[in-house]
């Protein structure tokens, strides 16, 4: 059987991802479309929050994904560190931009929601703060990729950074379990039996989360391809110069 590591070869990856990309894009668009339309137009308003509750379909998926993306970057970076697969490092680089945008969406929607719910745009509770620090790590991570000339050195250095930032990713997910304080919504268990969110909201929300995840997969494939092409271009230019 072919080893999974074959896909770490850029050429192999380009071929496979080319075949996969249309499907992922289609699936992502469909899932996200269904989830958002369902959530926005076919769910009742909340008795307490009115139509504001619909922000949930943007806020929760983007917040969840913002953290997941960082964890994915961590895994990709570690693969680079251990096995020196270039595609893996480039995937981490490609994911950072998406993760940062998700984080920003979560921050913005959270702020708007907070303005409605808590009467303030921002609160300094542990989870929100850790999340904001995570955003800073996204920025620093991208700046680091920008600043270092040599791609291999950049990959190594950003890996170190990614490792350190993971602490804050974990805190922004589990802060409430540690400190059990703060204004922010408790972690609700969408999947276990006694969900505290009525299924009317939960099902479209789950679809939205899946949609955001698929959008991420599609974008990351796309951006990784772009990164590979950029490296390829660089190699070709160098080759031409040397010829």
């Amino acid at each position, binding site marked *: 059987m072919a080893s999974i590591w074959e896909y770490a070869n850029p050429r192999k990856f*380009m071929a496979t991802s080319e075949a996969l990309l249309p499907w992922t894009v289609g699936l992502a668009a469909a899932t996200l479309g269904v989830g958002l339309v369902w959530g926005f137009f076919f769910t009742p308003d909340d008795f307490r929050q009115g139509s504001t509750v619909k922000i949930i379909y943007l806020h929760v998926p983007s917040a969840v994904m913002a953290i997941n993306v960082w964890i994915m970057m961590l895994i990709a970076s570690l693969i680079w560190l251990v096995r020196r697969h270039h595609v893996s490092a480039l995937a981490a680089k490609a994911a950072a931009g998406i993760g940062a945008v998700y984080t920003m969406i979560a921050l913005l929607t959270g702020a708007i929601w907070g303005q409605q719910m808590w009467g303030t745009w921002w609160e300094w509770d542990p989870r929100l703060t850790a999340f904001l620090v995570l955003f800073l790590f996204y920025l620093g991570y991208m700046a680091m990729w920008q600043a270092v000339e040599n791609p291999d050195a950049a990959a190594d250095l950003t890996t170190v950074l990614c490792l350190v930032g993971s602490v804050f990713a974990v805190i922004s997910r589990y802060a409430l379990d540690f400190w059990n304080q703060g204004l922010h919504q408790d972690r609700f268990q969408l999947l276990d039996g006694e969900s505290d969110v009525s299924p009317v909201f939960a099902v479209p929300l789950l679809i939205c989360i899946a949609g955001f995840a698929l959008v991420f997969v599609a974008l990351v494939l796309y951006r990784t391809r772009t990164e590979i092409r950029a490296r390829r271009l660089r*190699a070709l230019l160098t*080759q031409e110069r040397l010829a």
Partner: protein
Amino acid sequence: MTLGVHDLSVGRGDVQVLTGVGFTCAPGSALVLRGPNGSGKTTLLRTLAGLTPPIAGRIEAAPEAIAYAGHSDGIKAQMTVAENLTFWARIAGHRDIATALDAFDLGSLSERRAGELSAGQKRRLSLARLMVTGRPIWCLDEPTVSLDTENTARFARAIAGHLGRGGIAIVATHIDLGIGGETLDVSRFAAQSLRPDDPFAGDWSA
């Protein structure tokens, strides 16, 4: 202590500059690296010194045996000549700087701030630094730049002394140094291609 280099490929950034480099230096022998601008002398010396990892091949000599002196010399402008030398001597684990000062006639300059030296005086200081490292293999990149004739002769004497003590010297230069030794033209090994291990290179059309 012999320096053996076998089938070495060296590069800078994405580019492989030299490939298949091989030579051996017995104790007491010098090797002069020659080659036109951009042929890869500096790259080879940096790789020997352990500053750049080789692309392929083997270097037979502990990196702790090698002292490197390149274009930038690690001299602190705010410290005096003697303080600069003492620092490097202490890092190398001993304290005698008098021999090195003498070898390059720095005695009269030893209390001067290094920032107030002329180009040639600075160069002498960085050559003196080599002597205090006490390492057997010297890798020198254009060591006589800015030196006048008298000091070039001093440098040749220092090299001769080092070889006489069983040391080895690898020297890249464009001009004649009068230190004897074999000459190696690095352009023989010119590769100037992408690194062979670059997965983004090669023909992708297939």
